[in-house]
């Protein structure tokens, strides 16, 4: 390769999920700096910030693919943005690297999925929760496809378990008026609460549940936890110190994962972004995705998506998320499952883990699923 290969980095650093976007962008940037340092500027980033505007995502992706000659785009946080960008990526025969947990039911040849689908987060989460807290949850969610589909699956899991969903409510992305929902929860007294709200509405909800728990111990996290599959370390300061302590979250990575690779990785993050910076799963996945992308391009000697994909499916590659192998069929990464409990210092204590789970985006194996084999670590 004579010229540097351009890689598009498409994240919104402002708007309702700006915190996640900043983590994605920073993770990608750190990986690019490292690759450029060791491989003589083999890759060159093209950063575009759509500021949570869907039309700007399309414009940005088009500009990357057509004007900048990118064949790889790392980015998008929401499913809405991903679905908008995919047709363009297909048209230009590029590859979109999507690295957020999402609701599944997708397997596109022009996408690499490194963030996890429900059999990698929601299903093992419910396997943990139902025997410990009961099967009468309350479901809340952001009023778009993530919230709708996650809650629909949750309802099926609960019905399969012979339980009952006590309520299901939705809020628009930036809505913070959660009082009526919390009042309803107080009256219905669920076993646990599945929180698929995003950004400020999620933070307002967690604060209101904290206040409810202070009045009524039945709603403290040890009795009725608020659980989610997408809460990030970078959001905990926005929720407020101590507000979400004790609540649970499923993820493929937490800042607190105790591996030598993660210790080394966090040292790099600290020296680049300052010692206080906590790493979220989005930061780590974006970092791992750029590293994998660059490694594959360098090894294949081309940024051709077919050659890159073949390399990613040939053998597991070491990453900060553990060894990653991309399934040639589903295009998804097999990912570990960790269950984290928010602690007072703004991080997650890992309370249960499962080794890498192969992605099953269409849940073909749900009816023949093996009993869970969770390793309880605390």
């Amino acid at each position: 390769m004579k010229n540097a290969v351009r890689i598009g980095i498409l994240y919104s650093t402002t708007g309702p999920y700006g915190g996640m976007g900043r983590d994605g962008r920073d993770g990608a940037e750190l990986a690019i700096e490292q690759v450029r340092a060791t491989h003589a500027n083999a890759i060159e980033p093209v950063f575009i910030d759509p500021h949570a505007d869907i039309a700007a995502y399309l414009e940005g992706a088009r500009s990357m693919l057509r004007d900048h000659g990118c064949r790889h785009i790392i980015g998008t946080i929401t499913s809405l943005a991903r679905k908008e960008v995919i047709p363009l990526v297909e048209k230009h025969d590029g590859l979109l690297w999507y690295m957020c947990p999402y609701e599944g039911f997708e397997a596109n040849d022009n996408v690499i999925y490194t963030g996890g689908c429900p059999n990698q987060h929601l299903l093992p989460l419910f396997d943990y929760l139902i025997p410990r807290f009961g099967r009468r949850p309350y479901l809340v969610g952001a009023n778009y496809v993530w919230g709708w589909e996650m809650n629909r699956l949750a309802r099926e899991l609960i019905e399969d378990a012979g339980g009952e969903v006590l309520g299901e409510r939705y809020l628009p992305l930036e809505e913070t008026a959660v009082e009526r929902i919390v009042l309803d929860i107080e009256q219905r007294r669920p076993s646990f609460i599945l929180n698929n709200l995003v950004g400020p509405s999620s933070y307002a909800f967690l604060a209101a549940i904290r206040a409810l728990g202070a009045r009524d111990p039945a709603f403290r996290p040890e009795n009725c936890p608020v659980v989610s599959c997408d809460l990030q370390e970078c959001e905990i300061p926005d929720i407020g110190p101590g507000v979400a302590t004790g609540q649970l979250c499923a993820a493929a990575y937490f800042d607190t994962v105790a591996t030598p690779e993660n210790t080394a990785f966090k040292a790099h993050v600290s020296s680049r972004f300052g010692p206080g910076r906590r790493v979220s799963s989005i930061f780590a996945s974006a970092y791992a995705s750029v590293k994998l992308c660059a490694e594959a391009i360098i090894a294949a000697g081309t940024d051709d998506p077919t050659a890159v994909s073949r390399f990613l499916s040939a053998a597991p590659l070491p990453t900060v998320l553990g060894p990653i192998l991309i399934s040639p069929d589903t295009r998804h990464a097999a990912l570990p499952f960790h269950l984290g409990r928010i602690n007072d210092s703004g991080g997650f204590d890992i309370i249960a883990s499962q080794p890498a789970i192969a992605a099953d985006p269409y849940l073909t194996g749900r009816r023949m699923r093996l009993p869970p084999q969770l390793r309880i670590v605390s």
Partner: protein
Amino acid sequence: MRETPNFTGWRATILHREDSNTERLTRQLKLIGLHVNVQWEPLDASDLPDIVLVDADQGFDGLLPWSGEHAPCPLVALLGSEAPGRIAWAMEQGVGAIIAKPLASSAVYPALVMALGIHKERKAVIDKMNHLEERVRLRPLVHAAVERIIAVRKVDEELAYTILRNCAMQRRMPMEQVAASILGGAEPLPEAG
């Protein structure tokens, strides 16, 4: 809310000449959990799969072993053409969903779900229609049984009808069936009141 359709273990037959579309389609169907067979010859009526995906661009009469719009399994058309004749052919076969060619993998699962839903709905409508037709056909029996009750029990028509209906409700049988039993002598004439 409808349950997530699960196609795990289903048998799909793709009636299409093998090409890049069938390759992509096969890959996606397997991913969704189906067993896939690709052929370009008429389907064997004695060994039907669970779902059929047919090339509506090249499809010919007799490729599918049924006639009319009553397909015995969910049917999906693979269609590149916009020619009205080809669309009409697909509809005549009983297609419930269309996947446009060149095939986008994201079109496959929605088409399966749609075709399955349409197939179930059509089947339910046909079953209901058969049931209602049967009842309409047997309506003269009800009338004859009412006439018999009027004659024997010396009651008016309204009361005779009530007697017959109560008798059917007690036995948990359709009125037509009770009427036929009474007229055939298999059932004693119900008591008045």
